[in-house]
């Protein structure tokens, strides 16, 4: 057991830290879930790309640095520590890209990965439909074969599509074989949103931003080279994408460590009020719990990355990670609001907005009820 980073990893950390110190915007950007804020965040994404930080773990030929998972974790720690902006291109970078690496053709890799890294292709995620949320295999959007067009005609509706109103591509599942049922006969498509037949309508989220969208598709022609993985085998590809979303690549520990550090700072500011009984005395314990949870999440991730480095696959255990980070994030923010007391509603330092976002964590990426089902059935082996 060795919990030290190597000198090359330390040097990498120092390099990231120095760059972040010199480049992270001094004041927070407007929310990336608004049109104006999204544009500002894109400038930042491109600045990251120009400096080679957009996708550190990818091979250099696709715009990355070929960094190990350990270095990627370090990058993330430094990124969030520096208070850098949210990654508005995360769906492409962290969810779709791992699936392209695993299932894409060489042409698809060459075409998509560099453009995702450069934030030219901005992907949104098209799983959910009005009648298919947790039950993703129940989607009804369909793709009908059109040999003359050299591909498929897509029809249907996607919903809750994060930042769909600002993106130019969508990845999602469509039924290619109407005679098969449930997760058989689905295919994974990459769909340009500027095509004929696509209508996107922004939908205001709980926090008031247009972070959601509805995407309507009416006979949208999509060529064969835009199917990821094999036709009718899209479920497998989709599961690899959702595994990234549950676990490591979307929610590295750095984000929660930074939030926990901010929480401890907030506690220090409010300590007198806590000790005087003006605020709930139990907040001290809640703060330390949140800090310890971030610490535990980090250690558990180290364990996971060790196993992955040894060649093991991250399977259903990703559901443990999703449960842990999403519940930690909610209680961390609830604790912050408690510390703010009557000022919580003023959204001091973005805590209220952060709280509203944290509340989505147990819902998206597969609800926590679904994750508990997965743990029970696939980790513990309980009967369905």
């Amino acid at each position, binding site marked *: *057991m*060795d919990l030290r980073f190597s000198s090359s990893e330390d040097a990498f*950390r120092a390099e990231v830290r120095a760059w972040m110190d010199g480049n992270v915007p001094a004041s927070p950007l407007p929310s990336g879930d608004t049109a104006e804020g999204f544009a500002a965040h894109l400038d930042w994404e491109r600045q990251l790309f120009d400096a080679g930080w957009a996708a550190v773990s990818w091979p250099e030929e696709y715009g990355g640095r070929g960094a190990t998972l350990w270095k990627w974790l370090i990058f993330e720690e430094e990124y969030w520590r520096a208070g850098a902006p949210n990654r508005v291109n995360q769906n492409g970078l962290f969810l779709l890209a791992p699936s392209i690496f695993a299932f894409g053709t060489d042409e698809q890799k060459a075409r998509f990965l560099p453009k995702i890294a450069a934030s030219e292709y901005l992907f949104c995620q098209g799983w959910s439909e009005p009648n298919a949320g947790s039950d993703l295999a129940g989607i009804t959007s369909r793709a009908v074969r059109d040999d003359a067009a050299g591909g498929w005609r897509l029809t249907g509706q996607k919903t809750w599509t994060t930042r769909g109103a600002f993106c130019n591509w969508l990845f999602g599942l469509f039924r290619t074989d109407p005679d098969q049922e449930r997760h058989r006969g689905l295919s994974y498509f990459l769909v340009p949103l500027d095509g004929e037949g696509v209508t996107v309508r922004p939908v205001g989220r709980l926090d008031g931003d247009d972070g959601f969208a509805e995407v309507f598709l009416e006979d949208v022609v999509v060529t064969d080279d835009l199917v990821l993985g094999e036709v009718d085998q899209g479920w497998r590809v989709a599961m690899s994408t959702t595994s990234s979303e549950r676990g490591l690549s979307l929610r590295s520990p750095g984000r929660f460590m930074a939030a926990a550090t901010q929480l401890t700072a907030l506690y220090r500011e409010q300590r007198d009020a806590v000790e005087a009984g003006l605020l709930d005395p139990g907040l001290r314990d809640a703060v330390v719990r949140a800090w310890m949870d971030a610490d535990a999440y980090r*250690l558990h991730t180290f364990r996971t990355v060790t196993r992955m480095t040894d060649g093991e696959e991250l399977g259903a255990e990703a559901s443990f990670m999703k449960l842990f980070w999403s519940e930690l994030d909610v209680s961390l923010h609830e604790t912050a609001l408690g510390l703010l007391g009557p000022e919580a509603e003023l959204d001091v330092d973005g805590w209220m907005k952060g709280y509203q976002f944290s509340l989505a964590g147990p819902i998206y990426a597969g609800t926590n009820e679904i994750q508990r089902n997965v*743990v029970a059935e696939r980790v513990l082996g309980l009967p369905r």
Partner: protein
Amino acid sequence: MRFAPTDDQIALADAVSDLLMRECPPDAVRGAWETPDGRVPGLWDRLVEMGVVGICAAEEHGGLGLSMLDLVGVLVETGRAAAPEPVVDVAAVAVPLLDDVGGELAGTWVPSLVSGEASAAVGLERGVGAGNAVVENAAAADVLLLGATGVSGDAEVHLVEAEAVTTTDRASVDGSRRLAEVDWEPTSATRIAGREALGVARDRGNVATAAVLVGLGAAMLERTVEYAKEREQFGKPIGSFQAVKHHLATAALGLEYARPVVDRGAYTLVYGGDTRRDSSIAMAYAAEAAHLAGRTALQVHGAIGYTVEYDLHLWMKRVWALESAWGDAAFHREQVARRVLDSSPGAQDWTDKEHA
């Protein structure tokens, strides 16, 4: 960076697990409630033979010269089996403490503890409120290591031999724990180490007990999962009901995150760092995870789990004893709070710590 036990460490834990499956089945644990010393006859000798007691002891004293990192996986297995043996007190606390003190004391006691000739009891935690410390195995021990406020007014470790103490038995909820109040006088002659050594000894006790708790919790979870697959109601296994699944998934989640912090606690003890902080984190997680596993196990078993004929209570009661024997989870979180919240800003910054 490599956060996993070595192959040797895994092999050692597996060997102990095999031994305990043979020599310490649930019936043996149950039997220990009735034996005079609360132990499984002959089991300590087997552990001695395997070298478990001397894992952390210096080779010159008959030990293996290994460390807490080698012992931690073994302790998880002793917890899993609910082995009613003083592995924490002797192997994880007394032996390394005496080895640290060194000199004649170590030369006398460590070899005899490691070879099983002598027995030790450890009472480093003050009880809450007035009265004497309540110490496990105090009446049977040849030597006692006790924490006390000495003549200097500072916390110290004292070593007293059996003749110098009077013990009064106290019953534990866990019938295999032989507890006694210890009446004794600290003197300058009994003092063997100061505050710092006392602290390290407690930190070792915390990490070791946390490892045992993780094992106890894991065993209850595993057993309950098996039960839920077999027991049928409404024509199907109860494990197919979602309420039951979610209880079990939540218990599994707690244990999944407790193990890494326990291992890190051991790592910090061996390689340095804030041992009090990391051992307290280990204990806080393990205590809560094991407690929840017990609650869950009982609920999922229903009335059968509420009997003394069924084995579950043996594990559950051990958890109830150990989850607060070295300070409860809230106490340990407060230890962490003092370091993370009350010390200078930056002390809680993970990344700087590793830079240094």
